[in-house]
């Protein structure tokens, strides 16, 4: 399973910074993360299942999107984008 790495406040909502989550794509991993940790629902994926505009997901250090493949031991980082005001 992929290792999903979170920072606050997402890590607080999920009860920890690292979570082993199954899924073949980034989208599947994030949906599974929501399923296993319901308090995070709506925080990373919007109602349409898209990664929120100002959230970045990296797979082994490379920027990914919903359809990016995820292998068994990949590291998936979910980070706030360096944007905002």
């Amino acid at each position, binding site marked *: 399973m992929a290792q999903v790495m979170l920072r606050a406040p997402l890590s607080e909502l999920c009860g920890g910074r690292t979570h082993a989550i199954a899924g073949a794509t980034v989208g599947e991993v994030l949906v599974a993360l929501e399923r296993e940790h319901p308090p995070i629902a709506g*925080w990373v994926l919007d*109602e*349409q*299942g*898209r990664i929120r505009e100002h959230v970045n997901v990296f797979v082994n250090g490379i920027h990914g*999107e*919903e359809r990016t493949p995820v292998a068994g031991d990949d590291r998936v980082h979910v980070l*706030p984008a360096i944007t905002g005001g």
Partner: protein
Amino acid sequence: MTELLVGTKKGMFRLEGDPADGLEITARAFPGQSVEYAMRDPRTGRYLASVTSWFYGPRIWVTDDPTGEWEQAKGTVLPGDDEVDPAAEFSGDPADAYKGALNRLWVIVPGEEDGVLYAGGDPGPLFESRDGGLNWSLNRGLWDHPTRPEWNPGAGGLCLHTIVTWPGDPSKLTLAISAVGVWLTDDGGASWRHSNEGIVLRYLPEEARAATAEKPQHCVHNVRRAPTRPERLFMQFHDGIYRSDDAGATWIDIGTDKGLPSDFGFPIAVDPADPDSAYVIPLIGAEDRTTPGGTVRVWETRDAGDSWQPRGDGLPEKDAYLTILREAFDTKGEGERLELYFGATNGEVFGSGDAGATWAQVGDHLPPIYSVRTA
């Protein structure tokens, strides 16, 4: 003692004190996050705030103590669309905006029934809670309205920003959406009709107005009801001020050639004791949106819009180019003891304890102010 809840770009602030002596910050919540709106339900004392994380989206939070923990409310989400490819990019076309995710929650308003609250947001949803704000559901009558594909956003988005109840009658609601117009229901939200007759779309070429008059493309900025004469409503339009004496069925121009420095503005307020009263804060037109000539004035009518008088004793006289946003003006009390408060995007808050006769700065150095609500 007055309690003000101020929503800002960088969190919610509670200010407390007397308008004559100034107010002090007694609580801050949601630091670093945009608090579009914060209010206290007068029936329960509960605080509710609509908060948008730049990163993680909008949601409503609830607490009985704003200095303590807040609980995330549930249900302020839009229906997914099974026909949308989850991996597809949003088109960016405003016509597709209503298919997107919830962008912001603009306003929270107590209903007429115990435990009922309403919330409006972008892209135009109306949510209803029947348990004091912890759980919400989408009003499908409005969301599924057949005209929705014709709705277009204003500069602030496709925002449902105004929710006006009818005292004692939960079946009647008046809504306003930018840039769509006024919506009315008489059956508790099961069905909706738009009602913009009499409003002149001066922001369109004259030859285009007639064809657009019947369409839901009206940029209403704010609406308030006279509670002792509930069929009377006052409206701040994009460029115009209007009154309705028939519960929103038709609208009468009360802003043209009345001496106002501008009929553009965002908020409007009323004295609950006087159905002929209204207050506006004119800003120079759509391109500038600052106080005219660098002078800050609140304009008051006591004859239902036949005439307007400036109220500014104590407000900045010159070199003050402020912007006062839609939800950043509120009242408390009524009559001669009516209190008025407004906040500006430069972080200043002004208040009056005598129905606008005199004013004082009651708060300063706050982040850009989105909303001001008395509690």
